[in-house]
């Protein structure tokens, strides 16, 4: 039996081998590919592990906003707004140091791209209660500029007059800042103190407003504005010192006071139809520069209430024999936001009053807004601003704004 079956087995085995050979060949090729893929994957994992260096962390946060503006100014068309993209780069080495940099990119009216450095600082974590912030930082004066200006945080589509890049409140500076928080009895407190390059002053030449003692028509020079955004070099060598102290008697209430003291100098002027001799700005005496501010915020489950006041004052000086009188800019706003329970809607009301030495820039603004929180960091805003200039002969235009803001 076995002798007769063996040839059959051989034949069967031969048939099986011949049938299996192509499969074996395919399997070998497939296996080789799989091995190569595994080898590649191992390399990828190895590379990925290099990025897992636990001593260094890198992260990009930030925010962006786009929108639409409609206004009743006959000289301005309603327009979609390209908005702003503000990436914030964080690079951190353990819990010792963090580099923070925020850029602000936006599309200008002429289609070009504008890039601005909002801040760039190296933060040395000294201890649990103190951090050295060195470089360019957002002004710690008040609360809006340092904490509330990102569009996904600001509850209205615009900054209150005087708190943007246009007014009484300083925006940013370059220097060294110490800041941190600590417990004070049963309360919590935070602080920031700094020394910096400080602002520069811009003067304005108004033609033929005064008479030259010698008899000819000459021009009047007056302060035009404080340029309180970070300057990479200190044009006048004068430094300023400032800070903010905040106290929280309870977690839902914060009261802050701010100050700046120092000197600043007129470094530029503007004005056309200048009939006299260009004023010589070299050697001009620095003016005193003082800022005082106060901010209060309170919140409950549905309400968020804020008040902020800032006053900036530049002392007298003289240019080319003309005296410039001490001048003051001030602004304040009060804001109430109400999150409607069991909905994603939030209603906002804000009143602001910006006083400038130039009547044309004064602004009293009432804003109402309705926000829809698609998520807590992705917000659709609808806002309306009623703008009034209280000075006779001056006009301010109302605006309606739509904004989509996303914080990431």
């Amino acid at each position, binding site marked *: 039996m076995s002798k007769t079956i063996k040839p059959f087995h051989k034949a069967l085995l031969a048939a099986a081998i011949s049938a299996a050979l192509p499969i074996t060949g395919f399997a070998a090729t497939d296996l080789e590919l799989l091995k190569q893929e595994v080898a590649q994957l191992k390399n*990828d994992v190895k590379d990925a592990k290099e990025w897992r260096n636990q001593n260094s962390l890198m992260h990009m946060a930030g925010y962006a906003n786009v929108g639409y503006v409609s206004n009743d100014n006959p000289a301005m068309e309603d327009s979609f707004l390209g908005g702003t993209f503000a990436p914030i780069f*964080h690079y951190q080495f353990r819990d010792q140091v963090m580099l923070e940099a925020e850029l602000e990119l936006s599309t200008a009216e002429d289609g070009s791209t504008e890039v601005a450095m909002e801040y760039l600082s190296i933060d040395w974590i000294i201890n649990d209660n103190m951090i050295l912030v060195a470089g360019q930082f957002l002004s710690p004066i008040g609360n809006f500029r340092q904490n509330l200006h990102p569009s996904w945080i600001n509850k209205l589509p615009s900054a209150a007059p005087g708190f943007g890049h246009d007014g009484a409140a300083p925006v940013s500076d370059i220097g060294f800042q110490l800041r941190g928080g600590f417990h004070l009895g049963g309360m919590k407190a935070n602080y920031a103190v700094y020394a910096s390059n400080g602002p520069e002053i811009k003067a304005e030449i108004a033609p033929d407003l005064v008479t030259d003692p010698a008899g000819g028509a000459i021009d009047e020079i007056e302060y035009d504005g404080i340029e309180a955004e970070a300057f990479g070099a200190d044009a006048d060598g004068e430094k300023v010192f400032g800070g903010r102290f905040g106290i929280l008697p309870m977690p839902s209430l914060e009261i802050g006071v701010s100050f700046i003291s120092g000197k600043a100098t007129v470094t530029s002027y503007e004005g056309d139809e200048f009939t006299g001799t260009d004023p010589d700005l070299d050697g001009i005496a620095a003016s005193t520069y003082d800022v005082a501010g106060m901010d209060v915020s309170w919140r409950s489950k549905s309400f968020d209430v804020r008040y902020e006041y800032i006053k900036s004052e530049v002392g007298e000086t003289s240019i080319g024999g003309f005296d410039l009188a001490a001048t003051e800019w001030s602004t304040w706003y009060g804001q109430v936001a109400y999150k409607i329970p069991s909905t994603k809607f939030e209603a906002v009301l804000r009143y602001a009053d910006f006083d400038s030495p130039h009547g044309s820039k004064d602004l009293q603004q009432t804003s109402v807004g309705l926000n829809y929180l698609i998520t807590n960091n992705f917000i659709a805003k609808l806002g309306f601003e009623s703008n009034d200039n209280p000075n006779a002969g001056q006009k301010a235009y109302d605006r309606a704004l739509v904004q989509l803001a996303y914080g990431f």
Partner: protein
Amino acid sequence: MKLNNKNVILSSLAALGLALSASAAIAADYPEKGNFVKGAKAWADNCVRCHNLRDAKELRDDQWITTGFHMRVRGGLTGQETRDIITFLQQSN
């Protein structure tokens, strides 16, 4: 051959696991571990001082470290509050 195939499959699974773990949260040995419960309270008390609360699941563990330190600078938090909040968020994401 069967053994080789098994090895290949096991290696592939191991490699995939490593790849997944590489893209998952980084288990940094800093900052010092905080208190979860205190972190939950500090998170609720402090973050809303300026903005809406962010979902813990929005970011990975390592991203919560950089974000926590950024917020510490910005919000005047103490080091302990920051560690507590980071611990709470890392364990809640």
